[in-house]
């Protein structure tokens, strides 16, 4: 199992900055929004937590297709399926590697991008906290979507279509935590829900992912 983590992280690094690129995309989404909606700082600071969450979500989404696609194309996935590793382990490891290369850097860099969007000062900690709790769920759900579409040529857009509705609850609670935190309201309920989603998906979704992956290999 560790061999797989190491390999995936190594591949992410070799491929010209697997870490950097997810980040760069996040940066660019936050940069585009002001161009689209205009430079007014009050408007921007109002939509900032939501946009940060949407940016993180899209950055995750864009990197999903590479979770299994490359391994499928070059036949590694067939070989992994006939190897001693259990399929559930393989998908969990894949989700972990995805989170380390995408979710984690996003969480750490969110405060910086918050500045660009005039996020109120007390907002930074809430955005980071909600991202830290929420992004693992994004990776696990994304791995499921990726397993579901792995055999399909041009699965990229189909993948987005399938995964985005699954992301909605995470997004709603995550953005809600950040918004309430900024306004000084109680964040207990959305935080609890967010944590629940994350733990639930981590505990259960790998079984579904392993199942659809096996079906897709057939």
């Amino acid at each position, binding site marked *: 199992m*560790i*061999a*797989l983590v190491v*390999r995936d992280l*190594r*591949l992410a690094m*070799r*491929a010209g900055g697997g870490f950097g690129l997810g980040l760069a995309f996040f940066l660019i989404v936050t940069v585009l929004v002001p161009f689209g909606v205009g430079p007014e700082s009050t408007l921007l600071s109002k939509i900032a937590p939501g946009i940060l969450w949407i940016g993180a979500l899209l950055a995750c989404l864009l990197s999903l297709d590479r979770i299994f696609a490359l*391994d499928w*194309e*070059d*036949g*590694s*996935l*067939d*070989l*992994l*399926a*006939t*190897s*001693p*590793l259990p399929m559930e382990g393989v998908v969990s490891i894949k989700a972990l590697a995805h989170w380390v290369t995408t979710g984690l850097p996003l969480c750490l860099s969110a405060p910086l991008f918050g500045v660009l969007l005039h996020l109120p000062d007390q907002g930074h900690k809430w955005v980071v906290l909600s991202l830290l709790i929420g992004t693992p769920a994004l990776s696990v759900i994304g791995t499921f979507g990726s397993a579901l579409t792995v055999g399909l040529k041009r699965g990229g857009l189909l993948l987005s279509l399938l995964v985005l509705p699954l992301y909605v609850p995470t997004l709603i609670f995550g953005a809600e935590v950040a918004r309430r935190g900024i306004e000084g309201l109680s964040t207990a309920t959305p935080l609890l829900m967010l944590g629940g989603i994350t733990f639930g998906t981590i505990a259960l979704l790998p079984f579904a992912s392993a199942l659809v992956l096996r079906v897709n*290999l*057939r």
Partner: protein
Amino acid sequence: MTLTVTDLTISRGGIPVLEGLHFTLEAGRALVLRGPNGVGKTTLLRTIAGLQPPVSGDVDAPPESMAYAAHSDGLKATLSVAENLAFWADVFGTKSIEAALDGFKLRELMDRPAGGLSAGQKRRLGLARLLVTGRPIWILDEPTVSLDVESVALFANAVRAHLAGGGSALIATHIDLGLEADVFDVGPYRAKATSNHDSFSGDFDEGFL
């Protein structure tokens, strides 16, 4: 370590391609599958390796005893030859890649990224992977594609050594490998259109076929 196939029917894309297959592969033996293009050799090998379920019949082998090598070698272009091998060695829990490097003359290519190899060199690396799996039953789909004469001989030697060590090999190929092996022609087992399929009856799922 015996692989037994009993009355196996396999399908591809929902259509049965081969039926009524029977054979046994003993330890220490190699079996060469032959048959014209499109008859279903790849499908058969994938079924035996457990990648797809059979329509009916059984594949009997000890669990986790098979190593499958398909057309695609599962190589990562950005990892070096040694890293690629080491990864599979780790996955299969065998720690040394030395024998594999020597067996397929890969030592001098060791530090090159796999993406920068020629077609035949890639293939050699793909075959070397078999040696690090430590599995007794090899399931090989056209293993010598784009290998030169010398490399084919390397491969034949590797198979011979594997057989001598009590392993066995099931190989689908169109060309002569220079191995002393039994030949099994799957041509006669082509699935026939069954008679009940125009009556649209029969039990349960068969109504579709």
